[in-house]
């Protein structure tokens, strides 16, 4: 039987090892994939992914399905741990264009997946953004840089960095709202 994400999390909250096994199998490509995209090292990405599953296991009882998708909760945990790992090692992201290219070039191969159309719509909107708006968004969302840090990396004034991020996100939001209509 193919249990829902919510059901598996509920099982994990009760300490069910079978639920944990199914959950790890289901999510490990996404968790490891996101960690790898951010930290860039297979060894560090595996450490981050392990830590992410440990944190999910410990906090499964606090998850509430009414607050959104399990996937976004899981990936937010993974992203935060990836950023922590980068900072712990004193490594700075230097190539947001590379990650942007990865996000844009990848094509989903399962159109039947939930929210597939949203993701493709968002990918198209991200592709359509001017690079000077896309890069700051990647630096902020994936690498955890503040607007001030983004401005330094991009060599632009703080106000310009904030404006580019805000306008870029507004365009992406429009795309999501259109696809959700």
């Amino acid at each position, binding site marked *: 039987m193919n249990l829902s994400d919510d059901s598996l999390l509920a099982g994990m909250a009760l300490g069910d090892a079978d639920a944990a096994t199914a959950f*790890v199998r289901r999510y490990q490509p996404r968790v490891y994939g996101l960690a790898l995209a951010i930290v860039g090292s297979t060894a560090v990405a595996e450490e981050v*992914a392990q830590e992410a599953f440990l944190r999910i296991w410990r906090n499964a009882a606090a998850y509430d399905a009414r*607050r959104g998708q399990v996937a976004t909760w899981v990936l937010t945990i993974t992203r935060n741990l990836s950023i922590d790992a980068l900072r712990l090692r004193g490594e700075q992201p230097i190539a947001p264009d590379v990650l942007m290219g990865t996000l844009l070039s990848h094509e989903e191969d399962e159109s039947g997946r939930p*929210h597939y159309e*949203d993701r493709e719509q968002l990918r198209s909107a991200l592709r359509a953004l001017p690079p000077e708006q896309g890069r700051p*968004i990647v630096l902020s969302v994936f690498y955890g840089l503040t*607007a001030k840090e983004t401005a330094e990396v991009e060599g632009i004034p703080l106000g310009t960095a904030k404006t580019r991020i805000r306008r870029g*996100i507004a365009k*992406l*939001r429009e795309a999501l709202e259109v696809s959700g209509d």
Partner: protein
Amino acid sequence: MTEGLDCAEARELIPELAAGVAAGDERARALGHLSGCPECRRELAGTAEVVDELLLLAPEHEPSAGFERAVLARLTAVAPRRHRRRARLLWAASIVAVAGLAAGAVWWGTTDDRELASSYRHTLEVAHGHGLSAAPLLSAGGAETGTVFAYQGSPSWVYVTFRSAPPQGHYDVRLLTTDGRRLALRPFTSTPGGTAWGSTIQVPIQQIQRIEFLKSNVPALTASFG
């Protein structure tokens, strides 16, 4: 930090809030504004949705053989936090829900545990936090005068909401750690209508033993986390 933000100022910060990168002081001030502004909360929710969806664009990759076995070995070695811990979180959640989400005493009295846990989680999501704790702030006579929230992040901070403005005047604020250190935090000047104070902290929140507000070197308000 006691100064409030208007909508325009809060919206400047919303992309950073949604991405979880806002600096501690700004985050606290923005959250203070959001607690009383449904329109800005909707704006944050819409922006946070974009951030969430962007994370889903990352390509999938299979880790090396043996990864699953290693993960499961770690999981089964560590049991999920049990009822005692959960009760503590729910208690913190209820404080956050009442003070941070401004839902009031009726909400406090009618919400079930699940909703409290949800509110706690939502607060962490909004702040993209790594941990949140809370303790009641008591006067020298033992009366509860407010709540101290401690947030573990980058940076970590403490934030106080007072039920009403404390007696006017200057307060030195001190953090006592579990290993006996005494750290000076940002001073607080109480003014009529001032109902909040905050400061970044340089220690993990698990090491907070006590927060003290001192008037003329005498503890006037104290919150114990131990």
